[in-house]
């Protein structure tokens, strides 16, 4: 089912933008709509507290949610094509496990957000470097990369277990546990430059490359016969994709399901052509995570971990998609 209507491109922009704006109006501290508008337009009137809340508390957080959501969804879509497997999440190559280990390691010594994020990012890159090494040694076929990812992920998970063991159960261990559940709480402007920079490079990269991604869904032999340098392009996509995931996970913790489910929903909407799938995934991913994060910070007095929400929504969503898949498979046969 391919929708060729002209309205699709408009929705792609409208969806995340409206989610963004809506999110700015919502929060535990009730601020009148007009006051919010005044703050955003830079007008006089609203108190300093309102101004601070909207510009320094809500705005950076919603922006982060948009970037993280878009990144995870786009990379998930790209990896699903790259690995020719619709069950792939953006975390398949052990990047998340590396980041989790890095964050936990930092949390042993400090609670300073910047250090924790940097450590998470660095170890995410270490994880992917290890996977690449495996690829270089054993040939970067998709199978080798996946196995490499599993092994590296398992390695970092074990190391994470070790850290959890020595962590102080009064303070450090809960901090680690919370980080692993994923959250965008207390996101400040100072947290954003790395994420924004990497997103600003990575997402346009995938946008430009989007049609070419179609060619990676065929076998390596066919792709090579069509003039594609498969190994090279695979390496580049893995590298850029990993950067996007690493930057996102370093800030937000381990959030699952976005990379897996959003591309599938996007496919139902615009079809499997990556020319449309990449923008659709980005838009849907951003909008979804903005909405989920808004829920996380407003539904209850205490924060609901973001990873919990994505799981609670992601699992039934995936189940519905799966039933749909079985039904269409049945029709074809």
């Amino acid at each position: 089912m391919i929708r060729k209507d002209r309205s699709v491109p408009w929705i792609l922009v409208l969806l995340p933008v409206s989610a963004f704006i809506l999110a700015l109006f919502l929060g535990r501290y009730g601020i009148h709509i007009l006051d919010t508008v005044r703050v955003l337009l830079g007008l006089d009137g609203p108190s300093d507290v309102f101004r601070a809340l909207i510009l320094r508390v809500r705005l950076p957080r919603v922006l982060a949610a948009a970037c993280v959501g878009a990144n995870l969804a786009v990379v998930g879509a790209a990896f699903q094509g790259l690995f020719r497997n619709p069950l792939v999440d953006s975390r398949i190559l052990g990047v998340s496990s590396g980041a989790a280990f890095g964050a936990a390691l930092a949390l042993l010594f400090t609670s300073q957000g910047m250090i924790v994020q940097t450590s998470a990012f660095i170890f995410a890159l270490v994880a992917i470097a290890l996977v690449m090494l495996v690829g270089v040694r054993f040939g970067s076929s998709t199978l080798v990369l996946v196995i490499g990812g599993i092994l590296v992920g398992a390695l970092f998970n074990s190391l994470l277990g070790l850290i959890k063991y020595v962590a102080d159960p009064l303070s450090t261990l809960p901090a680690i546990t919370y980080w692993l559940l994923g959250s965008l709480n207390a996101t400040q402007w100072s947290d954003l430059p790395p994420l924004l920079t990497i997103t600003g490079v990575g997402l346009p990269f995938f946008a430009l490359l989007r049609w070419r991604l179609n060619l990676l869904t065929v076998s390596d032999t066919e792709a090579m016969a069509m003039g594609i340098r498969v190994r090279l392009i695979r390496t580049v996509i893995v590298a850029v994709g990993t950067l996007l995931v690493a930057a996102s996970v370093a800030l937000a913790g381990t959030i699952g399901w976005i990379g897996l489910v959003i591309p599938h929903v996007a496919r139902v909407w615009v079809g499997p052509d990556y020319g449309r799938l990449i923008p659709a995934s980005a838009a849907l991913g951003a909008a979804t995570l903005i909405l989920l994060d808004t829920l996380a910070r407003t539904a209850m007095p205490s924060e609901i971990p973001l990873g919990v929400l994505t799981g609670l929504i992601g699992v039934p969503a995936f189940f519905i998609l799966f039933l749909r898949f079985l039904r269409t498979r049945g029709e074809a046969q």
Partner: protein
Amino acid sequence: MTKLWIAVSLVFLCALTGLAQSETTVIDQSGRSVTIPLPVEILVSVHGIGTYYVYALGAGDRLAIAYYIGVKTLSSASESMLRWEPRLAEILSYGDPNIEEMVASGAQLVIADGSQHEAVAEQLRDLGIPVILYRAETPEELKEAVVLTAAFLGSGAQAQADAFIADYDRMVNAIATDLESLAENERARVLFVGTSLTKVISGEMYQTHLIEGAGGISVTRELFGSWNEVNLEQILLWDPEIIIIPPYGLIQPADILDNPDWQSLNAVQNHRVYRMPRIIAPMDTPVPESLLGIAWLARTFYPDYVSFDLAEEIVGFYANYYQFTLTDEELARMTGQ
């Protein structure tokens, strides 16, 4: 003549074994009935909180291995602690309880945490070592725990336990009396944060009882579970008058007072952000010191209303229950003066 000697020896032996066979049966805080052969000379505690019950009842010298809440290795023990317990290097331990070490120490009794040591307790019982499981999460349960501990530590301990309960009740009543005239809406609204600025206690945690015992109202009393993560908007919404930081973790009052996003809070504008001091055990956990915790909180909340002398209470407590004399510096730290 030999027959007489034999007879007397036999009687003597019987008497001895009779004495050695004296025992007591208690019900621990997991509801289990435990029979303990007395006297208990060698004791092991793998419960960082239960250790302090033992010290408070004057039996600290019987510990062969001990866990201390918040202290994992010698390097994280404060100078005060090292001075208080000279044997610390010898008996300090932490982590997953090591059964073999416990047996090797000759432990006649092990005290453990009811919320995590069920399996370990099972194994110890199989080896013939009685285990007492504690689960004290409210002041009432704290008192029960102290009484329970006294039951197997001997009659001297019983007296200490009674004294402690009396002191605790006295303090709570004194505070209640001092604050009688305060209306509900004049009570201090208190936010108790954790090891990060956005972590707060829930209504079910021990600290909430302490705050209420000190006459305050915890703004987070409707939350449940363990530490809760909240966002700044919610904190601004609560707008507490006083913010308390626990005696552990890395947060200092300056982290809040100097934070530009927290400026509009009542507590920050009135400079009422305090970190709980700590000499030995953390006062906000269900240890005997929590008696001082209530006192300290009450004095912090209502300096003009409380009638007791905090310094006196602190000195007296440590002398009576820990046989410990504070230095001037330590006392100053505790009283904040």
